[in-house]
């Protein structure tokens, strides 16, 4: 079984809710480019997906799954067996574009207008379930948040749940629009829209220095969200620190260190 360096971690104030981030990848995709990604979300090295798997999926599911496939492609993740991994996804305001179109048709036409895919593909669990089904992950899968505070809810729930269960690892998938789109009522947006996702591979903490954690002190709200910050970090390869105050006290801190290196198992 592979082990990971401890360069990047999530940790609670009392050090009991800690985990390392073994890999992460971020993707930003304009709405008009989503069709291509929907047809082929992976890389050449990605595991094969069921045919037309994302045909009815929400935009955030498409980008979220693509981000997971890119994080999986990191060289040090090549030997990881993901079969028992869990997946937790925290989309923000999933399904707005499709809901506007569906509601239009529903009010005009009634029951026959409703696609049977609306509930399974646009409810809060849709992103985590799609990742679980696509990649054959048999650990727990569930959605978290769904509203404006999804990132904080996702980070907290992932920390908590990883400790509560015996899974070898868990994907945390954060998805959002960079600016919430205004629906055109036909499934598109009248405003420019870029769909974004970060996939974080979380593994149980093995001790060592902390670079990502929940701390008890107060901080100011960050200038940008975690997904946007990670996109910048990944593009220039730098290390740094991102913090988010929690409404109930303390803050979450994500401090990205040197790139993760896989070590041989003892």
């Amino acid at each position: 079984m592979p082990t990971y360096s401890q360069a990047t971690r999530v940790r609670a104030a009392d050090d009991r809710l800690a985990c390392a981030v073994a890999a992460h990848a971020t993707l930003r995709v304009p709405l008009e480019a989503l069709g291509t990604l929907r047809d082929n979300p992976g890389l050449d090295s990605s595991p094969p997906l069921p045919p037309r798997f994302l045909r009815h999926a929400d935009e955030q599911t498409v980008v979220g799954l693509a981000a997971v496939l890119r994080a999986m492609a990191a060289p040090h993740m090549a030997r990881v067996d993901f079969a028992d991994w869990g997946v937790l996804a925290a989309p923000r305001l999933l399904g707005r574009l499709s809901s506007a179109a569906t509601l239009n048709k529903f009010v005009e036409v009634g029951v026959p207008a409703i696609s049977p895919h609306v509930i399974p593909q646009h409810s809060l669990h849709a992103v985590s379930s799609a990742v679980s089904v696509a990649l054959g992950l048999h650990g727990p899968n569930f959605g978290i948040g769904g509203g404006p505070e999804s990132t904080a809810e996702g980070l907290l729930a992932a920390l908590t749940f990883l400790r509560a269960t015996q899974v070898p690892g868990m994907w945390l998938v954060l998805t959002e629009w960079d600016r919430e789109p205004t629906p055109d009522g036909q499934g598109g947006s009248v405003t420019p829209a870029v769909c974004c996702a970060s996939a974080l591979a979380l593994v149980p903490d093995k001790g060592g220095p902390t670079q990502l954690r929940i701390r008890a002190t107060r901080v100011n709200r960050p200038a940008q969200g975690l997904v946007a910050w990670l996109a910048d970090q990944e593009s220039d390869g730098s290390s740094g620190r991102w913090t988010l105050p929690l409404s109930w006290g303390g803050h979450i801190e994500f401090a990205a260190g040197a790139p993760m290196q896989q070590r041989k198992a003892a």
Partner: protein
Amino acid sequence: MSMDDQVWITGLGAVTPLGNDLRTFADNLLAGRSGVRANELTGLATSLHACTASVGVIPPPRDWSPLDFTARNRLEQLSLTCTVKSLDDAGVWDRRESLRVGLVLGMGAEYLRVWELDILAGGRRVYEPAQDSQSIVHRIHSDLGLRGPAVAVAAACASSGFSFSLAREWIQSGLVDVCLAGGCDLITPMAYAGFFNLRALSRYAGDPVKASRPFDRDRDGFVMGEGGVVFVMESARHARRRGARAYAELAGFGSTSDAAHMVIPSTDPQPASHAIERALADADVDPGDVDYVNAHAAGTPVGDRAESRAILLALGAAAAHVPVSSSKSMTGHLLSAAAAVEILACLAALERQAVPPTINLDHPDAECSVRHVPNEAQAQRVRVTASNSFGFGGSNVCLVLRAA
């Protein structure tokens, strides 16, 4: 684990098709009364006639401003009422601002429901993103002055099952003193239409109370229900120190994924069986120690068979003796709130020392060969219960309760 570290359920707030308090709910459940009725779903150009288990007008919390309450959408009303009632029942309502109180609610499709309710009321919220500035859990958290974390969780029909695991972990890791856990969901016209077009709903045309028929060979889908249940949970140490009443211990949690299909349960019983096995192991109980299994069994032909195979596999030889029933035969399927209302059914079994029946079980499906409790409750010793919840996307959850 020491007894002090156990996590107890010490309060509950319910709005369900079988009643809004444990006594009424247990009376109806054990008497085999159905909450399913013929209803009209309004708000469309034409009304929609449906068999559902509805809760009607949601009662506001005690002493809450009626004006404020009616200004909220129905999903928020439901969540608020259940949350306040639960804190009140546990005896911590007046102390909630001096404790670190967390909030975890199973809510699988909050925004789909809220955007729909708004459109049907003449609004345009789905077109105006600025209106979505705060989710329901965060608004309740803020309105009640709670001082712990708050999240919504979703795993389709297993949603509220996850709330118990997170709440227990927050308590045991010291993040909170007390945590609210549960789930709420509504019947809306679009949700009804979505499930109808998925061919997941019963199309039974006779007496509505006969429509929900889990495990019966003539079942043809589930009946939608609505409602919510929110529980107060805390450590045994904390509960004892303040002299709280304990309904039960949340003793075990197990969860897996089928990883097979976005809607259809896996034909392989292993993943669901593993969820049950992990919950029993977490509770440190053997299959033979289980006195009652509240099945997910919604009444779909595929789902009930898949669950039966999983129960038989997980319980092994003990399956011949462990009674299994589906309270959805009476409550309908409460979707995101299903796991929560079925924990309430397990509390009723523990309190009354009786196992609730599966009503309308006249001809058990030969491929659902668990030990049924057909049509009439069964008096017996109940110390340990297990409750299954399975959701779209292949989520499998099992929760184990033990008498405190």
